[in-house]
């Protein structure tokens, strides 16, 4: 299978500490890949390195065959990689509508931003996104007054509006109720119809709901890779989550 995102021998070093010790990752077009692993395994760092949030010490990241290692974050975003951060990284002082509007796919130049109008097409696109994340009624609400789960949805909405080829999600369901988590899973499954999704998750029910392939990270290296069943019966994985009967409790 042709990879849309390809990570080769990726290393990230934080003042002497090797957070990633040479990780390889191949993601196919429109695939859903889930990354799990204990705290400090380097999951978020891996996503950070892909979008140039953390500097890559060695190794390479390829997107659609092009080397994007350590490129400017805005260039990477424009090429088509969207990122949702762990804690909802949204604009608390802006309305839900404005948050989505900011993220909307299109040109991001200065003059364009001054002259551009809020056309019907754009408005419809935003309304469509709001509908998908279930926040249509809250369009004019200032984000700071939303609940934690709703903020997570706003950020997922931003990623949808961005319409990137590859969506990187860092714990999209953190802080959500089981119902909210399930709803999020459905949003992501719809998203995966025309996007590639790489998600970090702790909640194993959620992972089972969405995942096609799981990658287990441990201490900055890849420990295992496979389907849900393969991972759950993998002795190495069980050992990492020592003291726990099943990795269901991996959170």
């Amino acid at each position, binding site marked *: 299978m042709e990879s849309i995102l390809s990570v080769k021998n990726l290393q990230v070093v934080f003042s002497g500490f090797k957070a990633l010790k040479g990780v390889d990752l191949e993601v196919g077009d429109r695939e859903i890949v889930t990354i799990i692993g204990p705290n400090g395994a380097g999951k978020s760092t891996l996503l950070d390195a892909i*979008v140039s*949030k953390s500097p890559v010490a060695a190794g390479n990241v390829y997107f659609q065959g092009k080397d994007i290692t350590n490129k*400017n*974050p*805005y260039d990477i*975003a*424009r090429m088509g990689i*969207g*990122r949702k*951060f762990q*804690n*909802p*990284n*949204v*604009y*608390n*002082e*802006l*309305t839900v*509508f*404005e948050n989505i*509007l*900011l*993220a909307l796919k299109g040109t*991001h130049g*200065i003059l364009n*931003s*001054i*002259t*551009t109008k*809020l056309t019907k097409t754009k*408005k419809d696109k*935003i*309304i469509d996104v709001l509908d998908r994340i279930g926040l*249509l*009624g809250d*369009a*004019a*609400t200032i984000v*700071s*007054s*939303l*609940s*934690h789960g*709703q903020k997570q949805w706003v950020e997922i909405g*931003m990623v949808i509006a*961005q319409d990137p080829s590859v969506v990187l999600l860092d714990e999209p369901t953190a802080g959500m109720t089981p119902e909210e988590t399930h709803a999020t899973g459905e949003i992501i499954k719809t998203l995966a119809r025309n996007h590639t999704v790489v998600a970090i998750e702790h909640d194993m029910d959620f992972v089972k709901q969405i995942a096609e392939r799981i990658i287990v990270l441990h201490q900055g290296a890849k420990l295992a890779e496979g389907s849900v069943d393969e991972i759950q019966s993998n002795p190495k994985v069980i050992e990492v989550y020592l003291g726990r009967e099943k990795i269901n409790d991996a959170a």
Partner: protein
Amino acid sequence: MAQSTIGIATRSRTPTRLGIVTAISFLVMVILPFVVGEFQVSLLSKLLLFGALAISLDLVWGFTGILSFAHGVFFTLGGYAMAYYLKLNLSAENNTYGGSLPDFMVWNGLTELPWFIAPLKYFPIAAIAMVLIPAAFAFLIGWFIFRSKVSGVYITIITLAISSALTTFFISQQAYTGGTNGITDVSKLSIFGINIPPNGLYWIILLFTTFVLVGSWWLTQSNFGLILRSIKENENRISYLGYDVASFKIFIWTLSAGIAGIAGGLFVPLNRFISPVYLAVAFGTQVVIWVAIGGRGTLIGPLVAAILLGQIQNSAERVTQDWQLVVGVLLLIVVLFIPDGLVGTVQKLFMKKQQPASTKQPVIDHN
């Protein structure tokens, strides 16, 4: 679905009312010279320019979150450009030494006009220089600061340093800048041979400040303004949405310096001199105070604050020389009790009235 529930429409109601208030104020201001005395007209002209300067700072501080003490510098650079024009156009009989060389240059032993000052004799060149020199200077600083990702308080420290360094530099280059005294005894403003009377100058300034206010409002209502506000709240996030944050900052910083430069240029024919006093940190701080008291991110607030404080200062000066104490106390009150500033607080009260608190999910704020 009701279109009114969607998006920003609900937020722009207050600005409409504000627009009406602004329009009425503008009309009142237009006829004011027929009602008040010459001194008030001159004072108001000055305060309107300070207001425009405060609005220019509001664009970078209130909207984009860059606190600058260097806006006095951009103002003064524009001021010097205009001052050279006015000085060089003094008629020979008005010039102390009869020649075409400005008096301070004669005193400092210059025998001919330096090549970089000579072109400012012509109004179009001076007018362009008044905008271009501060803007180009700002662009250069902005390029280094924002491309190298300096942010927050470090930018502010750099602006303080720039202000101090330029003050020292202008004082040291006495032969070219007039040193501590600056450029004094300039001619009255005349453009292409037409003399501009004080009322005419007042109307030009009123038009300019109104244009700055309305233009800034229009700019900040656009997507561009939305991007500035997001840069202020969290500049890292927006780069992952595909925006080149540094270029946006450089743009608004340069634009703001250009506005400050024009304000400075118009200030000189009114004030009849320009000196390094306006380059110094104390004046830069004054601009910051106008914006803080008026309300960051409100545009009209800084303008109102500059005019009000100017009037208070004028009245207080008759009673006591320690008027700065009054301003100091006012600033303390604002910082401690109304951090949104005067207009910011009024606007918030308005918004609360318009949007009755809806019964939403419990508020969880993670900041």
